[in-house]
Every structure is written in structure tokens, then in C-alpha cells.
């Protein structure tokens, strides 16, 4: 026996009320108590979004935040059965609807992406990778931490308090985010050359010597001794902070 259209409608109307606050006539409903559902649902949604985007919450006025949350939940059908993953959908919603706040706060999209990246990386599944800890940073093939993401930003939301960011701060910022053994998410700002180095390491394990050659090819330049030292220094730091996780096992 299928659910009757009427029953389906009542369920839809109650769910709709929780999302929009607009209550239809539903038989038998206790109008004084039904408000609890709207409160409970919106508390959960608001709480989860605040936890995912604390910097955005601080940046916006209370009224802006409340309106954003209310319109998002009313206008967007949340797809994720896992509530911790739901905040990601806010970014898609704001982009898809060309939300006015994105124009009002030019750095807002970057801020949301930056905040979500931290949550997503903190929570993401473990990714095993074959490697050894025995190797030499200068000569062995380097293995990148597979639990990482690269990100390009237009505004320095990783460096500055959002309210201090000015239009003249707009430029390309390259970031690597990775998760260390303790599970903490570490952000590293990269120059264009180091971004290419990490992108090469994404493809396969390679040594520093190979990296020099690849970067020279990418940029059509001859690296100087100073450049080599800068790359070595970056690799040492990346290894210490676990962006580079180890060395390719010798087969």
C-alpha cells in the first residue's frame, strides 16, 4: 500500500514549516507546540554552520547571519545525510544564487572555502600510501602526504582578519593544506614555483634534483644556487611538518 497523497502532503507541510516557518493547516496539529520543531531544526542548522564557519559568523552582522541561515535552509534542499558535511552545501548555495553577501564582502567566498577546507580535511578519510621513513631529503624520491589539498585564493583570508582585508589585497595566493599525524590541519603558503613543485609531487614521487629540472622546464628559467637552497629549505620544512610524508620505497 502506498502512502496516500494526503499523508504525504501533511508530512511535506510539516517539513516545509520547519524549513520556512510558514505553517499550513494540518489536521490535529498542536499549533502551540509545533513551533518546537522549527526551533529544534533551526538550532541544529545554525549551530552546525556556526561551528563550521566561525570566522564568517564573526564577520557578518547578527542580522546578516540569521538571514543567510534562514534563506539557505528554506531555499536549499540539503542533500547530505551527515550533518557535519551539510555546511559545504552553503557555499554551493551562495554561489548558485549569486548571493548578495558575496558582493558586499568580496573576500567572503574565499573565507567560506578556507574555513570549510579545514573542516573537511580534519574529518576526511585516511588515505594510506606506500612509503618509507628511511631516505635522504636531497637524493631520495619524496612522497607527498596524500591527505592534502591545494587552494588558490584571491584574498589573504589565511593571513588577515577578514574585516582587515582591503580591496588592494586582491591577488593570487597559493595554499597547501595537509593533515599531520596528530590529525591537525596545517596550511602552507606557496610561491608559484613551489606550487608547481607540489603539483609535480602530486603526480608521482620525485627527488629534489628532478624537481629542479621540472621547475626549470615549467618556467623556462635556469635555477640559481639561491633558488636550489630555497627549494631545499621548503622541502625540509614540508618534511618536518609532514606535507612531505616520507620516501618512495625502493623496489
Amino acid at each position, binding site marked *: *500500500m502506498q502512502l*496516500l497523497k494526503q*499523508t504525504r502532503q501533511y*508530512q511535506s507541510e510539516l517539513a*516545509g514549516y520547519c524549513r520556512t516557518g510558514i505553517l499550513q493547516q*494540518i489536521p490535529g496539529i498542536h499549533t502551540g507546540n509545533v513551533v518546537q*520543531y522549527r526551533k529544534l531544526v533551526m538550532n541544529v542548522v545554525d549551530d552546525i554552520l556556526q561551528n563550521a564557519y566561525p570566522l564568517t559568523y564573526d564577520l557578518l552582522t547578527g542580522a546578516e547571519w540569521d538571514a543567510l541561515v534562514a534563506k539557505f535552509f528554506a531555499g536549499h534542499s540539503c542533500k547530505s*545525510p551527515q550533518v557535519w558535511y551539510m555546511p559545504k552545501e552553503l557555499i554551493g548555495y551562495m554561489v548558485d544564487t549569486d548571493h548578495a553577501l558575496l558582493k558586499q564582502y568580496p573576500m567572503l567566498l574565499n573565507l567560506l572555502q578556507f574555513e570549510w577546507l579545514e573542516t573537511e580535511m580534519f574529518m576526511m578519510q585516511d588515505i594510506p600510501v606506500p612509503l618509507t621513513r628511511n631516505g635522504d631529503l636531497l637524493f631520495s624520491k619524496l612522497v607527498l602526504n596524500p591527505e592534502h589539498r591545494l587552494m588558490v585564493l584571491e584574498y589573504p583570508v589565511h593571513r588577515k582578519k577578514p574585516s582587515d582585508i582591503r580591496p588592494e589585497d586582491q591577488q593570487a595566493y597559493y595554499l597547501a593544506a595537509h*593533515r599531520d599525524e596528530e*590529525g591537525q590541519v596545517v596550511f602552507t603558503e606557496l610561491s608559484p614555483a613551489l606550487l608547481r613543485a607540489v603539483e609535480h609531487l602530486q603526480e608521482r614521487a620525485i627527488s629534489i634534483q628532478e624537481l629542479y629540472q621540472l621547475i626549470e622546464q615549467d618556467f623556462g628559467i635556469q635555477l640559481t644556487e639561491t633558488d636550489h637552497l630555497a627549494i631545499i629549505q621548503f622541502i625540509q620544512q614540508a618534511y618536518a611538518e609532514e606535507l612531505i610524508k616520507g620516501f618512495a620505497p625502493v623496489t
Partner: protein
Amino acid sequence: MVGIGYRKDFSEEFLNSDIISPSFIEVAPENWLGVGGYWKKQFQKALERYPLFTHGLSLSIGSPDELDFQFLANVKAFLKETGAELYSEHLSYAKCDNAHLYDLLPIPFTEDAVKHVAERIRKVQDFLEQKIAIEIVSYYTPVAPEITEIDFINTILQEADCELLLDVNNVYVNAFNHKYDARQFIEQLDLDRVRYIHMAGHEQVSDSLIIDTHGEAIIVPVYDLLEYTLELLGRDVPVLLERDFNIPEMEALQAEIRKLSNIKETVLKRTAHAVA
């Protein structure tokens, strides 16, 4: 067996001290599915020490929407991977018009909803290749009711041939909010199907309304209702302490676990004597 809902809010203290000694832990698969890093390590530590019961949030068994079999496949893999002893869900809906709501809404008490829900529980049980336990939820308003709550529940249990997760606090809350006798309600349930019991605290927000917050200590009348329930059951059933908000010191949670254990032991001894 008395267990506790394992929550991230107190995970660190829970794992790093021996103040709490539950017989098992319970989690919502949704909160741990596909999670790695720090929380996976913590969860693994907990799994090494305690048997696992699971209690889902998002299956939305009472939804008018289609069942999400991809999600269910993930749950099935999770149950297998963790060796979970039980999977339970709520007799409610949390998704409608293809949108998750992240809370539990009451299903209309109607004949067609009974058929609809029972069929979905059967499908879920077939898919998971195991019986599931369905929890009676607390609710603050009926929705277009045509039959009684007790008939709604018992018929679903029978037609779905599933188990019952009896949340004693929910029955207390519902009895208060909808002005019926909690003991009589429990007497009328199909008690042979009770597989698992939940206990929790609540908050009375007005003269006529209690909200099932899981944010307060269990009150004496709910302990009394548990004792009554266990006497009716006359057998050992795992009991879970749920505490989701306003988390107290570990000692306070252990005191509640101890109290629940004492009630169980007392009733079981009493019923054993009665049988003998």
C-alpha cells in the same frame, strides 16, 4: 549491560580515564561514516575497549521520499567494519521533499503510513540482512492522526517484524505532553519485541510541555518507569544512557550508569525469585 552514548564532546576524558565503566557504547553511524584522522583514532580506541551498538539519525524510515540505498550501503559497510551488535533507527522522518532536516519529525498516525513504514523497515532489514530496532520517538504534536499511537506502533512492529527500541524517557515525555498514562502505554506495547532500552533526561519548558533534550540528568519518575518496564519484561535487556548536551562531569555520568545497573540488577533478582 548498561552502555553510554559515545560523544565527541567527552571523548578525550572518556578514553583517558577509568571514571566511566559502561558495558558498551553507542554511536550514530552518520557521525562516524567516512571520518578519518583524529576522530577515527579516537573511535578506534573506543572500539578496542567496548562493544558497539548503533543508533541512526538520517535513514528517515517514515519519509515519503525514496529510501537512500547508497546511504544504507554505507551504513551496512560501517556495521560490518565496526562489528556493531545492533542497528536501530527512529520511528520518524528526517528527510522530506529530498531535503534533510537533521531532526526527527512525527509521522502521521494513519493506516497508510503504517503500511508504508512497515514496508520500508522490511526493505531495510532485507538490505542489511539483519533485524533492526525501531525507537518510539518523543513528539510534541500529533499530525493528522487517524489511529492511536499505540496501534500505530504495534502494527508497524508486527507488519515489519522488527525489534523495538523502547526509549523509556520518550514514553514519559509523550505521556506528559499528550496526557496519557505512561505505564498503561508500556503495558500495551508488544514487549516481546523489546531489544534495547534508552534512558535520558529532558527539560520541562511549560506546565504542559516537556522537550526531550538529552541535556539533563534522568529524573526519578523516569527511573521508576524503567523499573516498572523491566519488571514487565522479566528479562535482561541492554540499557543505554544518552547524554548529548550540557555534559556533566564524568563522575555524574558514572553515577547514572551505576543507578541504572542497580535498578536492572534489583529487578532481575526479583523476577528470578518470582519465577523460582
